[in-house]
């Protein structure tokens, strides 16, 4: 059994495998062509095992730092896996597996339609998976840039998959925003290199100081990343892109890709440059988040197409993520509520990832049953795809912040921090956001539950209905079994108060 304990030792070079495995699958998918889904047989268990290994390692040994090729920084690239990385890696594995399984009927060997989309889908999906994992394990700012670009390219290509003019336009708009964002990020990286001579996040953490240039670099980088995370007012590309993409792609985009740039913002301000954050900047971020919540929700209420409702919901929900900055960041780190605010924000990201993926996949099933996604054509769809509608409802729980979902735990943690720190206005925003989410989600849900003749709808394979249910159930389970993830997230967190709620 020594090989097993050896496998669990932290200096084994399996950390790069997290990126290499999906990348290899992406490369292999090209020659495999229409048999590409076969790769899932190897990829899914292997990546799943790696994710479990990551969590086990972090849980028992703490934060893992690995120098690729044995080269230490500043020449080499470091990979770091802490609690935050581990949960994101696991969530990515789960969502990507779900999306892949969901897409089997449409893009697998049985598909009868156009083959180019089926051909392109698998390498793009696997490459996106690799890019996501790369973001979550990289400890070097330039490595993150490369990973971000990989994500952008695969995401844009997936958006444009069906080739219609409107989606091509949406993809181009996305590409413009994303590339401009990358350039801004690069500019900040250049500044930081100029000041510190290293881009390694751990090195920056040690040598960072509240210098004006550092703050300026951070702000520029964050602005670029905000464009990729679609925070108000840089959100305009998201609704057309996420609603124009095929449902599995939308799931990956809304659930994971926008979270990757958010992850980098977290790394930047909580790990690399915590001392450089000014209170005004953090309040600005949260204010933009608050506006995003209200703006996105109001626009979601006005839509008549289901995919657009879900896309605007993403715009709104991403706003919640930024409310954690003034509560947990900057000088607040030493406060007793910082831990719950930070964990609450991450829980929100995770709950939203699983719930939104479930929602988009459920919507995909509903559209297949009804033929299109206009709301008036979806009346009574619960008689056609009852499990998918149930999954939609279950996922809505998380988005509305109602118990027993992960979204409720996140909301509760953020609310207590907001009130404990005296910044009660964020609490008001969160409550209002929850009510607005209920308004724009119960609208399609009611319509789906109306009376209708089941024979009007095309039957949808059971697999495509149960996968969203499984993902939605995950978001609920995150709310019930939340103690362990909470503890896991504290591993490797920036030193500060790790106390819980008062």
């Amino acid at each position, binding site marked *: 059994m020594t090989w097993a304990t050896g496998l669990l030792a932290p200096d084994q070079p399996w950390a790069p495998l997290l990126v290499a495995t999906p990348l290899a699958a992406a490369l292999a998918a090209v020659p495999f062509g229409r048999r590409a889904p076969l790769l899932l047989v190897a990829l899914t268990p292997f990546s799943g095992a790696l994710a479990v290994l990551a969590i086990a390692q972090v849980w028992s040994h703490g934060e893992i730092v690995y120098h690729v090729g044995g080269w230490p920084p500043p020449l080499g690239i470091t990979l770091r896996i802490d609690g935050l990385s581990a949960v994101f890696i696991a969530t990515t594995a789960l969502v990507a597996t779900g999306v892949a399984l969901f897409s089997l009927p449409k893009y697998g060997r049985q598909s009868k339609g156009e083959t180019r989309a089926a051909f392109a889908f698998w390498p793009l999906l696997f490459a996106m998976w690799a890019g996501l994992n790369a973001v979550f394990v990289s400890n070097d700012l330039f490595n993150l840039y490369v990973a971000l670009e990989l994500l952008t390219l695969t995401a844009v290509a997936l958006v444009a998959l069906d080739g219609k003019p409107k989606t091509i336009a949406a993809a181009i708009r996305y590409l413009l925003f994303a590339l401009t964002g990358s350039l801004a990020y690069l500019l900040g990286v250049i500044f930081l290199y100029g000041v510190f001579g290293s881009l390694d996040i751990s090195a920056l953490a040690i040598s960072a100081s509240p210098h004006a240039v550092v703050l300026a670099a951070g702000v520029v980088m964050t602005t670029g990343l905000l464009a990729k995370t679609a925070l108000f007012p840089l959100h305009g590309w998201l609704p057309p892109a996420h609603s124009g993409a095929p449902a599995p792609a939308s799931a990956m985009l809304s659930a994971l890709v926008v979270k990757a740039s958010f992850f980098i913002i977290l790394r930047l301000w909580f790990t690399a440059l915590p001392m450089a954050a000014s209170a005004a900047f953090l309040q600005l971020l949260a204010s933009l988040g608050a506006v995003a919540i209200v703006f996105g929700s109001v626009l979601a209420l006005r839509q008549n197409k289901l995919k657009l409702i879900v896309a605007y919901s993403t715009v709104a929900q991403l706003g919640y993520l930024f409310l954690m900055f003034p509560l947990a960041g900057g000088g607040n780190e030493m406060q007793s509520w910082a831990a719950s605010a930070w964990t609450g924000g991450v829980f929100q990201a995770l709950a939203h990832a699983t719930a939104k993926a479930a929602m988009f996949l459920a919507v995909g099933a509903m559209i297949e049953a009804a033929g299109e996604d206009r709301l008036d054509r979806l009346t009574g769809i619960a008689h056609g795809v009852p499990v998918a509608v149930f999954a939609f409802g279950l996922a809505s729980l998380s988005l509305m912040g109602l118990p027993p979902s992960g979204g*409720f735990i996140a909301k*509760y943690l953020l609310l207590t921090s907001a009130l404990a720190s005296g910044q009660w206005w964020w609490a008001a925003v969160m*409550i209002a956001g929850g*009510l607005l989410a209920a308004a724009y989600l119960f609208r399609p849900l*009611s319509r789906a539950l*109306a009376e209708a003749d089941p024979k009007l709808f095309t039957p949808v394979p059971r697999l495509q209905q149960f996968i969203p249910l499984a993902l939605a159930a995950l978001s609920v389970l995150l709310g*019930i079994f939340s103690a362990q993830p*909470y503890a896991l997230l504290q591993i490797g967190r920036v030193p500060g108060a790790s106390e819980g*709620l008062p």
Partner: protein
Amino acid sequence: MSAFLPILILLTSFTPALIIFFLPEHWRMLRTAINLTGAIAKVSLVIVMLAGVASGETYEFRFELAPGLNILLRADALALLFISLSAALWLLTTIYAIAYLAEGPNQSRFFGFFSLCVAATTGIALAGTLITFFVFYELLTLATWPLVIHRGDSNSFAAGRKYLAYTLCGSASMLIGIVWLESMTGPIEFTVHDRLLELDATTLRVIFVLLIAGLGVKTALVPLHSWLPAAMVAPAPVSALLHAVAVVKAGAFGIVRVIYDVYSVALVQQLGVGLPLAFIASLTIVYGSVLALRQDDIKRRLAFSTVSQVSYIVLGAALPGPFSTIGGLVHLVHQGLMKITLFFCAGALSERLHIYKVQELDGAGQRMPWTMLAFSIAALGMIGIPPVAGFVSKWYLGVGGLQGGQVWVLAVLAASSLLNAAYFLPLIYRAWFKPAGGGDGGLAEWPLGLVLPAILTALAALLAGVFAYAPYSPLSWVTFIVERNYGI
């Protein structure tokens, strides 16, 4: 075992829900079997728990969600009262619902959410902390919405929309209150008293208003009550559940918990929020009855009667003194028994004789004598005529009002009884003493599932009143709770 019994009781309704959701629509026998098994299992486990508590055991289940955020299920005396009531009534309502919906559509969906509803009520009853209470309270909202919109027509959806709007806003208010309070005091457990004494009075008042407003929506306090009559479009078993066991009672139960276990009666009086609450409750009592008079639809009349009657519980909680407390708490049980009887009967009348309006009741007593007998007993109890149980609660409330120096309470009680008489007596008169207007005559007292539950609950209401001073009656139980737990 003592840690698992509470969660087991919860699971007896939660597991059936999960199974029933995925049952094909036409598997009636299996669905009925699972429903009844769950209900009977729950009643049995509750009896086990009662026996255990009587012999000195404590039942507590703790589960950590996040540091400082715990789910706590504990069987204290008040919890046991509520859970016994809901377990017993759930069994009867299940039997009734199976008979009522016999060939209707979407039964798997209905019974799935029905069971979830009861699971949520169990959680509310057993909740040991404010946040646990809130979690299950929210679950109740979510589980009842699909029941309200069950028929799927535009009226149902409009009612559902109103229901959601009211209840979700109410819960937002409640969440703010809870989080605010707990940010200053730490998690609030119901058995740990006197935590709030160091806090600022104005803050405490504002939080009290937030909490009561949130709970008041479900309790249908004026002016937060209009969702209740609108929700009458739901099938009768839903109305029965909503009005006697689950939603409205949960709200009232929550108010009782807040006043007795979170704030304490002394603090409520000291802050001066007790009297305004009593006023609002009294206003609701009178206003509900006045509006009930103006309804032609039987179910709507009963709905407004509920609005009025549940506020007796709130009135009892808001007034100082042991008698009003006892009166309010015991009305929780009595009103449950009487109101569920009335709704069972109303549903039977509408299903068998297609009677929806007051005018159509003529001569119903000849065609459905047992049902109308149950109806009459329950109605008399509502009015407050001895020996049915309603009289007992009103008596105690009146005495409590006198003792606390609030003589106007007597006026409110008297007015309410008069109004109750005004809108119930005509129904009884029409049913028994007027000849039936057409129709084919003949006895219509079947199926048994529609009739028997009403008779049982009416009997229970009668016995609760006649044997009110017997050792295990609701009244004695409540007296015991008040004396032991609140020392008043």
